[in-house]
């Protein structure tokens, strides 16, 4: 369990920043890579290691951070939607209708899109839960967080190793 602790802590932080209302307005493409980078540093501190970090290990920690961010992020989002019966899809529905009117698309496509999202909206307003919405959240969170976590691990290991190389050269 101890070896996953840095990933759990940083994944939790990233999950919160991506999902919780208001805080999420600060979300950006750096959250996941920075979380993975911090997990690498925490891992080194927890294991009292000061040597070079293997890229393989860095990617693994990045991926684990991504997995935990996806788990926490998805759980928060599904829970908040269930409690409040409000989410991005419901908030953006009037905008979606307006947007569709401005696009040069056929009436069939317009009807199809509105039918799909009207169903999701009705389910969420009535029960606070929609299978389509939940599935899209899970797929999105897992794919994106895993990719960006791995990117953070890869780039983070380069920065940490170059810092170690520099300090050894200076020594």
């Amino acid at each position, binding site marked *: 369990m101890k070896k996953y602790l840095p990933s759990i802590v940083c994944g939790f932080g990233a999950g919160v920043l991506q999902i919780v209302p208001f805080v*999420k307005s600060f979300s950006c*493409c750096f959250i996941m890579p920075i979380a993975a980078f911090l997990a690498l540093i925490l891992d080194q501190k927890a294991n009292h290691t000061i040597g070079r970090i293997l*890229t393989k290990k860095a990617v693994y920690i990045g991926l684990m951070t991504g997995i935990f961010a996806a788990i926490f992020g998805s759980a928060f989002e599904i829970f908040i939607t269930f409690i409040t019966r409000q989410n991005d*899809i419901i908030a953006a529905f009037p905008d979606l209708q307006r947007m569709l009117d401005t*696009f040069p698309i056929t009436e069939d496509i317009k009807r199809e899109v509105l039918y799909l999202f009207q169903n999701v909206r009705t389910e969420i307003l009535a029960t606070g839960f929609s299978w389509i919405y939940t599935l899209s959240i899970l797929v999105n969170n897992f794919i*994106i*967080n895993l990719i960006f976590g791995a990117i953070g691990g890869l*780039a983070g290991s380069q*920065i940490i190793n*170059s810092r170690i190389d520099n300090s050894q050269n200076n020594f």
Partner: protein
Amino acid sequence: MRLSIKLVIVLLVLIWCLGIFSEWLIPFNNKITIALPFLHKTYSLVCHQIKTKLITNGSYETMVCARCSGIYLGSLISSIALIFFNFRKSLGIKLLLIFSAPMLLDVFLYTINVYSYSKLIAFSTGLLFGSVGFLYLYNGLRQLFVELNSGKT
């Protein structure tokens, strides 16, 4: 790094960048409209998507803000350039800090109202950061393949 791997990397970054401009592709394929709300949700994980900061063309908007669009397009440019050039230099954090300085300075200056938000400045500073930031990712991938091939544990 093998050419095939470099091409796969370019392809992946290209798909990600096409996703950013998916609304702009609607005139070519109407069915993209069905995926738009899902794509919007996907990109919301990596960007605040504030309406006034999106790049617009008539009724079409990008899925991420001008700065993020710059970062990803910068990465795409670097990934294409790396097909033709071999990059083997070890990178310290100093280079990343230098190339992220214009971006951070822009964020700071418009936040304290020295000037108002400019999509062009945000895009160009993002482009600069993205093109250099990708080198770190590329170096990491190169190192990863070396480790995997040598069976290092």
